[in-house]
């Protein structure tokens, strides 16, 4: 309710600001153009949208925590680059046996935790074993295939019950985080990791500050301090940028590009993202249990208009986005064609269809409005039910009590949800489940990807859901800032390369 008022007011404001902007000269806003060398002790302020509820890397899920803590404060044996390559982290290298059942990691020497304790191979074994054995820890189930974890000197060996082509990728996330065995740190409000930054302070409701870890085992970070400032309102964030209070805006609304670039000192950077806006359709009840009705909905939606309204991103016609393995262009499965949509509905014997769309209110009204008018065009009346996120999680995610749902799935490589009949997508197709299983068991990467692509095509052809668009990561970066990741910033934000010249 509050957000809706805020949105309306923000729109009104943006209009007034544009009028006013025509007749102003800015006093001393924003960072000045960079002139010299990077300052190794610089402080960089980065705007983020969503603040985590606590700092518990073990248990609290969500990208809000991954963004700030993984790679920067906590590390795993392996990490991922912004273009989704798997690279060494606490393990200097690793080997996978030909049968895909044994993973051998060589641990870096001389690694210490932020409190000065040494990292031992036993810490690695304990971290992975505890993750696997503790159901309330995030991604615990992703280690289900691991049957034993042992250490010998600086070598850590994972033995699998069956091959798992997603294991290494999973180890770059929560499942692979390495903690100090028996650590007494209060994980909910503090942190003790091995990364290039130390958690300095969490000012709840405002900011999280990281400082450079001078005892870091690898190359030291390029700045002295990073301050994540949590600013929910897009317009307020732009104001903060204009007043020179932040150096980087993540989650930037591309429709405000003109406003910020007037300032001269800002560049709007577009990166790829794995965020997929999924229009889920509950196929457990009529009429959405009929593929023709779902297909009609897909073909009624003008995806190009959505991308244009959002201001960035690209169309997506299947469950796998371009940066992920198994992607192929599936636009042939649902070309925009209201005529065909009407014919399909008629064929299915459906008329005067009324559907309810359940959507978390923070996604705003732009997309729901397009959906309402697109579906209205083919004779479907859409009622939009904007709820708070807690209600969405309860009603849609947990109880699957919905007709249509709209939410952003940011996680990379999350095709597994289409192979899980219990997931809220309500998609239960044994053929897809089998293909996904085969892809997991494949020991050859190309083969694994081909199987995923095959499964993805079936999901799209079944019109299991619609994919409204694939986001772009949009950031606004001040002059003088270098090394700011552009791709997939909603999932991760590795700041070890960040520098600031003044």
């Amino acid at each position, binding site marked *: 309710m*509050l957000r809706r008022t805020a949105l309306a007011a923000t729109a009104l*404001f943006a209009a007034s*600001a544009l009028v006013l902007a025509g007749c102003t000269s800015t006093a001393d806003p924003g960072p000045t153009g960079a002139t010299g060398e990077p300052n190794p002790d610089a402080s960089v302020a980065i705007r983020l949208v969503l603040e985590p509820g606590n700092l518990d890397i073990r248990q609290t899920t969500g990208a809000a925590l991954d963004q700030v803590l993984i790679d920067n404060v906590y590390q795993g044996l392996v990490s991922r680059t912004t273009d989704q390559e798997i690279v060494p982290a606490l393990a200097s290298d690793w080997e996978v046996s030909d049968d895909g059942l044994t993973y051998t990691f060589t641990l870096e020497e001389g690694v210490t935790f932020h409190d000065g304790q040494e990292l031992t191979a036993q810490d690695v074994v304990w971290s992975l074993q505890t993750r696997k054995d503790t159901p309330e820890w*995030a991604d615990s189930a992703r280690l289900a295939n691991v049957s034993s974890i042992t250490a010998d000197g600086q070598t850590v060996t994972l033995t699998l019950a069956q091959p798992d082509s997603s294991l290494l990728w999973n180890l770059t996330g929560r499942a692979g985080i390495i903690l100090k065995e028996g650590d007494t740190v209060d994980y909910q409000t503090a942190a003790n990791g091995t990364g290039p930054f130390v958690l300095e302070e969490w000012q709840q409701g405002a900011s999280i500050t990281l400082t450079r870890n001078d005892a870091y085992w690898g190359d030291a970070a390029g700045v002295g301090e990073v301050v994540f400032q949590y600013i929910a309102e897009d317009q307020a964030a732009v*104001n903060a940028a204009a007043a020179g209070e932040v150096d980087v805006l993540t989650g930037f609304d591309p429709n405000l590009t003109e406003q910020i670039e007037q300032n001269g000192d800002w560049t709007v950077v577009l990166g790829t993202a794995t965020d997929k806006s999924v229009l889920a359709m509950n196929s457990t009840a009529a009429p959405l249990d009929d593929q023709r009705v779902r297909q009609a909905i897909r073909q009624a939606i003008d995806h190009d208009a959505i991308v244009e309204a959002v201001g960035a991103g690209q169309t997506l016609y299947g469950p796998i986005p371009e940066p992920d393995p198994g992607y192929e262009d599936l636009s042939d499965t649902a070309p925009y064609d209201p005529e065909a949509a009407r014919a399909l509905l008629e064929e299915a014997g459906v008329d005067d269809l009324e559907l309810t769309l359940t959507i978390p209110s923070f996604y705003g009204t732009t997309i729901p409005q397009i959906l309402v008018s697109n579906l209205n065009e083919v004779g479907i009346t859409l009622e939009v039910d904007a709820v708070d996120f*807690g209600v969405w999680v309860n*009603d849609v995610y*947990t109880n699957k009590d919905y007709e249509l749902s709209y939410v952003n799935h940011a996680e990379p490589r999350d095709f597994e949800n289409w192979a899980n009949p219990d997931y809220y997508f309500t998609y239960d197709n044994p053929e897809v489940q089998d293909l996904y299983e085969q892809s997991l068991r494949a020991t050859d990467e190309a083969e694994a990807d081909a199987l995923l692509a095959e499964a993805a095509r079936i999901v799209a052809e079944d019109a299991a859901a619609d994919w409204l668009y694939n986001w772009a990561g949009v950031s606004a970066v001040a002059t003088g800032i270098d090394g700011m990741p552009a791709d997939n910033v909603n999932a991760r934000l590795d700041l070890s390369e960040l520098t600031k010249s003044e």
Partner: protein
Amino acid sequence: MIRYALTRGALLLLGLFVASALIFLTLRVLPGDVAQQIAGTNGTPEQVAAIRESLGLNAPLWAQYADWIGGVFRGDLGTSLYTGTGVTTELAEKARVTVPLGILSLLFALAVSIPLGVVSALRRGRADGTTLSVGAQALAAVPVVWAGMMLVVVFAVWLGWLPAQGFPRGGWSQPADALRALILPALTIGIIEGAMLLRFVRSATLQAIGQDYVRTAAAKGLTRNAALIRHGLPNVGLSVISVLGLQVAGIVVGAVIIEQLFSLPGIGRMLVEDVDRRDLPMVQGELLILTGFVLLVGFLVDIVHRLLDPRQREAS
């Protein structure tokens, strides 16, 4: 008077008790819980169940309520389900932002409304008086978010005098910075609340002008304005005190929105985030304190009003 204060105090406590039960029950009607939120959109049912158990969310409702109220009487509002810190500790921390923000807002509101309200009453029927009163009508209808944004653009973005958002990391150990951070948000609330109050002051002043004692004083040779200021204003003050309770409630609501907009780590912003996260012990504590505060102001206003107003004193 004592008897009145005791009765009024009993009413205050009853109000608080009813509020506590209402708050508790309303929050339990909200769909969703903290365990689902922690497990997120890739969490398994097993994970949610394990988290729920570890947080003690499976205890029966009456036991949870009794637990909470029992704690409240001992001055312990429970602990956050997310951070494990005491609700009391968190509230005390956030109050350092919200209380000064509220006081500053109220000062701005009074500074705007009292002089201008009196002037617009005295200048009634003339251009400037009418402008003031129409302007106040218009201002009172402005959305708080928009007003805040406009102030930010002028004072932070163009002039660079004040910060656009945020609160210094050192808090009140940097008193000048902390105060500067609160000026724009307080001004936003103050202007809008002040505009509402202005209309009230204006009508109270107009009423006072028409009173017999002011006319009598004027007949004894004081000018109309002098008579009003000497004899009428105390009564205007009384009327203002009587609506202060409402004003404070308005400021509390304003603070919730404004703290979001200005990214201030206060009780208002925390309340919104804790509701989103279903951190119910925190929300309960926040709402109880805010409600208690508004009720307490109402109580004090009534007592002060009675003490100051000779007519009411005689009546008791």
